[in-house]
Each structure stands twice: as C-alpha cells, then as structure tokens.
C-alpha cells in the first residue's frame, strides 16, 4: 500500500504555484525574445520542457522577471491571482500593441482545505511544451513590431490583496477592438492556466 502511494504523482498547492510561476517566467522570456522586445544577442539558450528555451541575460530584465515570478508564486499560493497580463507597448507613444493574457483558475478546495491533487509532472510539462511551441510560432500571425517596444506586467488580483511595495494600481491597458488568438491551456489540477494573445487590429492587412 505504501509503495503504491509513493508511486502516485501528488501535486501540492506550493508545487503547483512553483510550476505556474516558473511557466510565467519562461513564457515572458520567450515572448520578449520572439517579439523582439529585447535584442536577440541578449538571450541565452537553455533546455526546458523538452525544448530549447531562451532566457534573457540582461541583468535588469532578469531581476525584474525573477521578482515577478516570486510575487506571482506568493499570490498563486493564496489563490488570489486571477490573471497575469504581459503588455507590449510602443516605447515612443505608449500605445498598447499586444496583450499576452494568462487567465488562472484556482481550485478553491485545495486552497481552503490544503488537500493535494494527482497529476504527473511529465504530463504537465507536455502541456506547457505545447504552449511554448505556440508562443514561438505566434510570430507567423502576429503583426510585426516595427518600432522600439517596452513591456509591462499586470496582475488581476482579488480586491482584498495588499498591494506590494513594487506594485501599483493600474488601468488594464486595453486594446480597442483587438484581434485574439487563444492558445492551449495547461492544468496542474490545482491551477488551470489559459493563454490568449490579443493584438492591435491591423486594418490594412484586413483589406488586402
């Protein structure tokens, strides 16, 4: 009986939060690389999710993303994080060009009762791998970012969340009448993450 229990793939709230926040880190890096927000040469290759992923070597960005994932993990453990949005904006005008939307559904029973769930790590990794492939291939349909861009990260949280020192309340930085592409989802059985990219509707392309 004991050996059977040991062979099961148990996932806890903390473990799930770690997987999801790590996913945000890698996904952010991948988006910044593929969308050319930071120069190609500032990224290094690493193996992750059975793929070759790219991670920034820019100290500023690296610190930013590590602080981000730490905070997200904390919120994920409380079940108060509803959505994370990576916004890509024009550096010159501040206009929002792309919104990478990660919606999160948390199993409230796990948060309230502290129970665990069963899902194999391998399966979760396979699901994340599929999303990473989609992010990499998104450059085929997303409009070219022809001007220098910057990014911001928004977090949609429950209203009773205390605002951390490095965060401020913000407007949702929406795109008027955007195009949307839904990507695959992944589910740790505790957190379900839906990824969706919305981008500025390019009328010129529509007409041609």
């Amino acid at each position, binding site marked *: 009986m004991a050996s059977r229990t040991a062979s099961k793939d148990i996932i806890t709230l903390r473990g799930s939060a770690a997987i999801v926040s790590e996913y945000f880190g890698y996904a952010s890096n991948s988006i910044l690389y593929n969308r050319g927000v930071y120069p190609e040469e500032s990224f290094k290759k690493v193996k992750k999710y059975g793929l070759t992923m790219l991670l920034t070597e820019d100290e*500023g*960005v690296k610190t*930013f993303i590590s*602080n*981000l994932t730490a*905070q997200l993990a904390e919120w994920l453990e409380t079940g108060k994080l*509803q*959505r994370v*949005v990576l916004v890509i904006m024009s*550096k010159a005008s501040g206009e929002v060009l792309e*919104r990478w*939307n990660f*919606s999160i559904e948390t199993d409230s029973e796990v948060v309230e009762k502290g129970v665990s769930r069963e899902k194999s790590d391998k399966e979760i990794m396979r699901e994340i791998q599929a999303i990473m492939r989609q992010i990499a291939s998104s450059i085929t349909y997303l409009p070219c970012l022809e001007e220098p861009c*910057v*990014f*911001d*990260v*928004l*977090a*949609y*949280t*429950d*209203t009773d*969340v205390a*605002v951390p020192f*490095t*965060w*401020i*309340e*913000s*407007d*949702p*930085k*929406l*795109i008027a009448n*955007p195009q*949307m592409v*839904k990507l695959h989802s992944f589910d740790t059985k505790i957190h379900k993450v839906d990824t*969706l990219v*919305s981008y500025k509707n390019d009328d010129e392309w529509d007409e041609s």
Partner: protein
Amino acid sequence: MKIIFIPLLSDVLRWKLDDFLALLPFQLIGIQEFLFPSLQTREVLDSMTKVGEIQARLKQMEVALDAAELEKREADNEAVLAKEKAESSKSEIKRIELKLASVMEERDRLKNVIEAFRKQKSVESGHEVVSGAVLQELEASLAKKENCIKELESYLSEQKEVNIRQLNEIKFLNEKLNNEARRIKSLEREGDGLRSQIALMESKLGHGDYSSANTKVLRMVNTLGVENEAKQTIEALQKELQKTKEQLLAVQELKEQSADAGAMVDSYISGKIMKLKEQIATLEKREERYKTVFADRISVFRRACCELFGYKIVMDDHQRPDGIAVTRFMLQSIYALSDDEKLEFEYESGNTNIVTNKYTSQPEISQQVDIFIRRMNSIPAFTANLTVESFNKRTLS
C-alpha cells in the same frame, strides 16, 4: 369273390356278441348245429337276418369307405393345396422378409436422416425427437413437424402482428425522430446563439475586461525602459541647470549694475497695490448697500404676502442627510390660535411637499392634507381652506 372285411378297431370295440358270431365262417355252422340241435332252424334264420344286416352294414361300411376315400382324396387335394399354400406362404414370408429387410434398411436410412434432421433441428429450435420405431418416429416427427408448422404458422401470424405493431411503432418513432430532429435543429440554433455569446464573453475576457467589484489590476513598477531615459533626462537637466546658473550669475551682475532701477520698480508696485485696495473697499461698500436694499425689499415682499395670503412665511436652507440641498418654508396663519399651528413645506427643484409635523398630523388637519394635497394635488386650496377655517374659529370664538 370273397370280400374279407377287416373291421376298424373303433368299430370292433362297439360290437356285441351277435356281431362276432355273424363273422364266423360257414364251416362253423355244422359245429353250431352239433352243439345246439334244438335251436337250429331259428338260429339259422336269425343268422341269415344277421348276415343280411351285416351285409347291409358292410355295404354301408363300403359306402362309408368310399366316402372316406373321397374325403381322403379331398384331404390329399387339400394337403396339396395346403402345401402349395405353405409354399406360397413361404415365398410370401421370404418376400415379406425381404421387404422387412428393405424396410429395415429404409428405416436405418431414415434413422440416419432423422438423426441428421434431429441434429439440424436441435441447432435450430432445440426440439427433441422421440426415439422408437422408425415409422412411429417418422409419424411422431411428422406430427411434430405439423405441430411445428402450426406453431410456426401461429408464430408467423404473431410475428405479423408484431411486425404491424413494430411498423406502427416505427412510424411513431419516425415522427418522434422528426420531432427530435426539429428539436435538435432548434437546440443547435440555440447552441449557436450560446456559442456566439460565449465567443463574445471570451472576447470580452480576452480583451481584458474585469469587474472592479472583485478584481483589481496591479502593475509591477517597471523601471527598465525608464532607466535609460532617466539617465538621458538627468544629463539634460544637469546641462539645463548649468545654463540657468550661468544666466542667474549674469542677472545678478546686471542687477548690481542697475540698483536704482530696482527702487523705481518697487514704488510703482506699492502704488498699484494701494489703488487696488481702494477698489476693493468701494466694491465692499456697494455689496453692503445691495444687501440692505435686498433685505428691505424682501421684508416688503414677505409682509405683502402675509397680508394677501394670510400666512407669515419663514424660509431657510437645509441639507438633507443624502447631501441634497432643500429650501424649507414655515407658514403660520395670521388667524392661528396658537404658535404651534405651523405648516412646513420643502421646496426642491420645482417641487413643493408638505412635511408632516405635530400640527399637520392632527386628525382634522391630516384629513385636509389628504384631501387637498394628496388627492386634489393643490397646496393653495389647502392653505386657503385652512385660512377660512381658522378665520371662522377665531371670529366665532
């Protein structure tokens, strides 16, 4: 010729003494005569009679013999016939035996066939064939088969009924199916509608909509883009500062050179201030005067209203708990019997409403409020009626 008659043993046993004597030969007659000399003649006669009788009997016997011979012949014939019959019976038996053999063969053959049938039958319907004589078996089998046929026929008719029932059922189900198909279509349409609604909701969600009631949006302070800009800005500001410092030095130098000009500017400004203060004092006096005039005119207006309509009117402004400003009017009839007889009204953006107080909640007044204000929607009628009533009370008392 002398016929020697040899009697049959059965006849001999029946004979009497006379019969034996009659058989004695003629040579023995002398002996009789010797022995019995007195009775000779009569006895001869008797003997002659007896001979005659014996001869007659002989004749009868001969006839009987002939008849027996005939019978024997007939019996022989019959025996031959019987033999022949036996022969034919034998052949018949043989034929029958052959027939039996062939029948047995046939039986065995049929048995095999029956076995085969039985096997086949047992597979098909599980019926069992009763063992026994072939014919019986066959008959039984036939009877069974007939029964079976009957059963099958009844089964067939039952099946026909069932088929008809099923046909009806199928028709009914077809109708149901059509209904279901229609329903499915309508559900599909509904589904499409819901899908489009979902798409709309998803698009809203994807767009980033949220309810501020249970969600707040936070942004991580991002200095990545700003840092470079800030450096540039600081550099620009430092340059600007340097420039300003230089300009300030230049101005100070210039000021030192033209100190007299500065004094002139100061006296000009103080003169200007004096003038403005005088203007203010004049305007304040004018305001006071206007206030006095307005107060007088208002007093006249109030008095006139009191004379004309019979009520002293006091007006003041209030702010309700919800923050809305209202003007309150307090009316007291000049014919009032006591100071408590006051009517209160609230005036707010063109609407005047009576405020219930101790006086207006008295049954008599409350009734009038109900009739004139609530039903007839006329405050003037109410106040006029109250004026007349108060006047009557005052004058009558």
